[in-house]
C-alpha cells in the first residue's frame, strides 16, 4: 500500500477513536461496559487472526487470557499497582514474554495439533489455578478499583474511563498491527498459509513466522485478559477454560483474517447476543449462541472482514 493510504489509515483511525470516545458519553452505562468487554475479547480475537494469517488457529487462547488477567489482578492486589493503563501495558509485555518462551514449542505444530497443544496448555493452567488456594482457587479473587494517572474516579465514571483507555490503547495497537500485517514478515505469514514448504524453499522460515505471530497473539491475549479482569473487577480460572477459548476462536472465524476492525465488530456482536439472550432467555442463552455460531459460519464462511474488503476494493475501483 502507498504512503498516502497509510496517512489516511492513521487519520481515519484517530478520527474513529475520537468518535467512539464521544459516543461513549451518550450511550448508557451498560453499553459502555459491553463494548469494553467486546474490546477485551476482540484483542484476543485479534491475536488469533494474527496466527490465522500464518495458517494456525489456537484453541487455547484462554491460556494467555488467563495469564494476562491474573498478572493484572496480582499486580493490583499484591503490588498495589492500580493504574489501568499501566496494568494493561505490563500484562501485554509479560504475557508476550510468556508467549515468546513457549512459542518455540508450539511453532513446530500445525493444524489440529497446534490447536490441541494450545488447548492442553490452557487446561494445565486451569488445573493449576483452581488448586492454588492462595489466589482464590476456583472462586478467583476481586481486583482493587483501578486508578487513572493517580486519580480514582467515582463509580459512575469508572466504566467510561476504562472504556476510553481501552479504545485509545486498542486503537494504536490496531494501527501497528495493520502496519505489521503489510510488512515483509506479515506478508510471509500469508505465504506460509498458502504453502509452507515453498516458503521454506525460498529461504524464509515458517517456524520464525509462527513464533513471532504466537508471541504477538500472546501479548494481545494477555492485554485482553487484563482488560476483561479490570472491567469485571474479578478474576477466576474460568478465564482459561476451554469454553472461553472456544468463544475467541468463534470471534476470529466470524471476523475472518482480512480486516482488523471486523474483529471488534465480531466481538461486539458476540457480546450483544450474549447479553441480550442472557437477559431475555436466561435458560437458553447457550442455545441461542450456538445457533448464532452455526448460522454465521454457514452464511458468512469467510468472515465479516470479507465484506469490508469487497467494499473497499469496489471503492478503489470506482475512484480509478
Amino acid at each position: 500500500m502507498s504512503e498516502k493510504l497509510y496517512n489516511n489509515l492513521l487519520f481515519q483511525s484517530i478520527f474513529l477513536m475520537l468518535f467512539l470516545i464521544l459516543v461513549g458519553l451518550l450511550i448508557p452505562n451498560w453499553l459502555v461496559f459491553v463494548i469494553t468487554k467486546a474490546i477485551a475479547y476482540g484483542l484476543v480475537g485479534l491475536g488469533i487472526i494474527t496466527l490465522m494469517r500464518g495458517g494456525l488457529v489456537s484453541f487455547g487462547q484462554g491460556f494467555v487470557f488467563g495469564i494476562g488477567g491474573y498478572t493484572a489482578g496480582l499486580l493490583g492486589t499484591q503490588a498495589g499497582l492500580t493504574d489501568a493503563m499501566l496494568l494493561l501495558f505490563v500484562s501485554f509485555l509479560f504475557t508476550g514474554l510468556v508467549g515468546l518462551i513457549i512459542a518455540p514449542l508450539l511453532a513446530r505444530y500445525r493444524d489440529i495439533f497446534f490447536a490441541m497443544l494450545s488447548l492442553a496448555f490452557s487446561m494445565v493452567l486451569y488445573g493449576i489455578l483452581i488448586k492454588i488456594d492462595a489466589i482464590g482457587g476456583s472462586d478467583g479473587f476481586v481486583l482493587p478499583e483501578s486508578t487513572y494517572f493517580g486519580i480514582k474516579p467515582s463509580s459512575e465514571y469508572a466504566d467510561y474511563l476504562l472504556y476510553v483507555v481501552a479504545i485509545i490503547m486498542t486503537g494504536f495497537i490496531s494501527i501497528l498491527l495493520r502496519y505489521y500485517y503489510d510488512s515483509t514478515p506479515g506478508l510471509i505469514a500469508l505465504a506460509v498459509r498458502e504453502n509452507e514448504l515453498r516458503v521454506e524453499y525460498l529461504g524464509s522460515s515458517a517456524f520464525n513466522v509462527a513464533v513471532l505471530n504466537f508471541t504477538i497473539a500472546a501479548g494481545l491475549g494477555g492485554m485482553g485478559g487484563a482488560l476483561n479482569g479490570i472491567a469485571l473487577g474479578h478474576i477466576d480460572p474460568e478465564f482459561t477454560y476451554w469454553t472461553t477459548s472456544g468463544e475467541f476462536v468463534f470471534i476470529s472465524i466470524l471476523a475472518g483474517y482480512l480486516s482488523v476492525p471486523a474483529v471488534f465488530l465480531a466481538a461486539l456482536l458476540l457480546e450483544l447476543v450474549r447479553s441480550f439472550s442472557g437477559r431475555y432467555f436466561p435458560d437458553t442463552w447457550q442455545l441461542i449462541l450456538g445457533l448464532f455460531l452455526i448460522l454465521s459460519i454457514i452464511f458468512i464462511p469467510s468472515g465479516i472482514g470479507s465484506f469490508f474488503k469487497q467494499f473497499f476494493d469496489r471503492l478503489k475501483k470506482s475512484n480509478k
Partner: protein
Amino acid sequence: MVDEILTIVLDGAIYASWLFIVALGLTFVFGVLKILNIAHGGIYALGAYSTATLVPIFYSLGMPEQLVILAMLISALAVAIVITPIMERGILRRFYGQDEVLIVLVTYAIYLVLEDVQKLIWGMNSLYVSEPRELLGALEFGSLYYVGYDLALIGLAIFCGLFLWFVLNKTQSGKIVLAVIHNPEISGCMGVNINKVYLAAFFIGAFLAALAGSFTAPLISVQVGISVAVVIESFAVVIIGGLGSIPGAVIGALIIGMARAACVHKLPEAEIFIMYFCMAGMLIFKPKGLFQGAQARKI
C-alpha cells in the same frame, strides 16, 4: 501395599474403560470423517439423561430386573438415531472438506446447543438411577469390595473395542470403511457410497458416546454440566493414542485412567490436571500420538 496397588489398578481400569468407550466413538468419527467432535460430550450427556428417564419407566412397567440392560441399550440407540440425522445430515455435511479447525468450531456450537437442549427437556434437577448398579452384586478381592456393575464396565469396554476392531478388519463393510478412511475420493470412484459410510460412521460414534452415558448414569447423579469434563478427557485420550487409532484409544485410556487413579490415592491435589499434563507431555514429545503412522507431505 498390595491392596493399595490393587485398588489403584482396579479403579484405574474401571475409569479407563469408561473413558475408552467415549474416546472410541470420538476417535472413530475422526478417523472416518476427519471431524474432532466437541459435541461428542453432549451426546454422552443425552445418553445419560435418556437412561435416567427410560429406566424408571421400565421398572414401572414391571419388567424383569435383569432386562434393565436392554432398556439402557435402547435409550443409547434412541439418542443415536435421533441425533445422527440432525447433526451429520443437517449440519456437518455442509462443512466436509473444509478446514479441520472450522469444523471443530461448528461442533463446539452444536455442543452449546445440546447443553441447553438438556436443560429444556430435563430441567435443572439431578436425576438418579442407581438400581442397575445393584444388579450384579459385589465382588471381593482380598479385603477390597467392588461393585460387580463397575467391573462389568471393563468387560463392556473390551467388547466394544474388539467388536469395532473385528468389524473394521474382518468384514467386507469394515474394509470399505477402511478404504474410505484411506482415501475417500478413490473409494468414491470405485463405487463406494461415501455419504452412506459417513452417516454410518457418525451413527456408530454417536451410539458409543450415548452408550457410555447410559452405562455411567447409574454411577453418577445425572445433572447439568456432566458433559463439559468428558469433552477434554476424551480429547486427551485420543491425542495420547493418536487421532483415529483404536489401539491408541486403548493405551490412551489406560494411561489416563491409571494416572488419575494413582493421583486420587497418592496425590489428590494433582487429580484434575494430571490428564492435561499427560496430554501436553505427549503432544510435546510425540505430537501425532503413539499410533499415528507417517504421512506424506504435499508440496
